[in-house]
């Protein structure tokens, strides 16, 4: 209700105003230490000396290295990376889909009437913690665990990707499913449909485009983050670019960045096609 209950009198002030001023102040108060901690000094980017160094390095990018031998290596690594990312994501989906569904509030029957019941709430909390654990342990740690079991090579790398991406995808799936309009889902649940039925009849059709494009985006991330595969000797484009970068070999970096740009554009095309089909 507005503060003034007497009809007719125009309220003189927006009741939300104080709150807004407070939050604005709080934001500024928070930003300041952030800037200090990160030594945020953008102007040093524009100092002539650092500009010169950067320009020298960027000049190295041109022309990109286009030797046949190198290109063949890049193409091979690119395919390996794509294959490993695809395998990793496919495995990740096996875990992410059930976990994501478990963590979704809008599929909870007991949450229909306000609070979730205790059992499901605990299950959901447990699932969320599992997802947090899966994705906050760095890939290198996963990789080292699997090196002990399967040795150096592709398998360890793919498993490491699968686990951490299961954590990421599961969480984002849950959030996407919760963030849209859930009225039609809740209507079905209220009328006695099961969770999975409500998922397939209301939640999925609404969010399929979003879900699929996020998955494709993650696939693309997996390609980029294949540095982790290098840890355990599975190779990959990410590892190559890391190495060339460390060597400040601009020409090689430029070529591989172009490959990345191409792969990203490819992912975008796939994502657009899926989106188009799902709407």
């Amino acid at each position, binding site marked *: 209700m507005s503060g003034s209950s007497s009809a007719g009198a125009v309220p003189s002030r927006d009741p939300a105003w104080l709150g807004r001023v407070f939050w604005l102040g709080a934001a500024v108060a928070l*930003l300041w230490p*952030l*800037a200090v*901690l*990160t*030594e*945020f*000094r953008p102007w*040093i*980017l524009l100092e002539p000396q*650092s*500009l010169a160094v*950067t320009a020298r*390095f960027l000049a190295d990018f041109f022309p990109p290295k286009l030797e046949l031998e190198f290109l063949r290596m890049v193409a091979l690594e690119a*395919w390996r990376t*794509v*294959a*490993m990312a*695809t*395998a990793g994501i*496919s495995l990740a989906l096996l875990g992410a889909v059930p976990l994501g569904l478990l963590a979704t509030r809008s599929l909870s029957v007991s949450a229909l009437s306000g609070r979730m019941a205790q059992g499901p709430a605990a299950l959901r909390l447990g699932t*969320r913690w599992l997802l*947090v*654990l899966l994705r*906050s*342990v*760095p890939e290198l*740690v996963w990789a*080292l*665990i699997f090196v*002990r*079991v*399967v*040795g150096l090579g592709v*398998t360890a790398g793919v498993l490491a990707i699968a686990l951490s991406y299961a954590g*990421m995808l599961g*969480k984002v799936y849950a*959030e996407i499913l*919760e*963030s849209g309009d859930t009225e039609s889902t809740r209507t079905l649940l209220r009328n006695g449909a099961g969770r999975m039925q409500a998922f397939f009849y209301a939640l999925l059709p609404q969010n399929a*485009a*979003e879900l699929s*494009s996020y998955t494709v*985006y993650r696939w693309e991330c997996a390609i*980029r*983050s294949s*540095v982790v595969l290098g840890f355990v000797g599975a190779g990959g484009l*990410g590892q190559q*670019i890391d190495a060339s*970068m*460390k060597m400040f070999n601009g020409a090689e970096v430029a070529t591989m*960045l172009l490959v*990345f*740009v191409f792969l*990203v554009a490819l992912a*975008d095309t*796939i994502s657009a*096609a*899926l989106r188009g089909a*799902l709407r």
Partner: protein
Amino acid sequence: MKLYPQARLSIGRRGLAACLALLGLVLASFATLDLQWAQMFSLEAARSMGRFVAEFFPPDLSLAFVAKVAFASLETLAMSALGSLIAACAGLLLALGAARLHGQDSALARRPTRWLLNALRAVPELVWASLLLISAGLGPFAGTLALAAHTTGVLGRLFAEAIENCSEGPGFALRVQGAGNLRVFLYATLPQVLPQLISYTLYRWENNIRAAAVLGVVGAGGLGQLLGFHMGLFHMNKTATILAAMLLLVALVDLLSDRLRRALA
């Protein structure tokens, strides 16, 4: 009963082709990689994984080290938060150019902006960091900028899609009334997509905490540098403390985003 030929699920031909291509890609991937599943499921495997995990205990909780980890966490938190914030602002601006705001929007800037976003995100954080380390020097500032640059590309695209996906009704009503694109965005589209945008930003923030771990290795500071150092030296107990700190940070952001989304819903 009559037969209804129209009753089939109507997925376009393009969609069918896309699905088949994806299936093919997955099969080809598994086929070309020599994955070794056999070793995964032995008792010995479980035992040796268990031994590895057991080495983490007990975590190193000596005061000096915890203080060091706490400061590093703060640095990581600051780097990732500021990077994500910059990226969210820049991403939103670029997303406006990259999205078709309504059905009849000619969206001239759409193509070029999308390419810009693609380029930003095609370059991994690590490469951005190495690039920026040259001009900004070692330290968290370069890391922050690197996170911001890559994340701008990511968020810009996600935002653009969220904007294109949101329900047309409210925006339509304002547009036919003659309100400009930006105003329609502020008054009709933004309130609808805001939870989603915030959710994406928070998610990317969390992601950036982990990415900052990788950046630490190139000298950008924070938890990542500590992790790389102690992990490489097999200081498992110290590693456990660092991992716990990361877990806490991620859980914190996770909790925050859950709360915020529920407050906004």
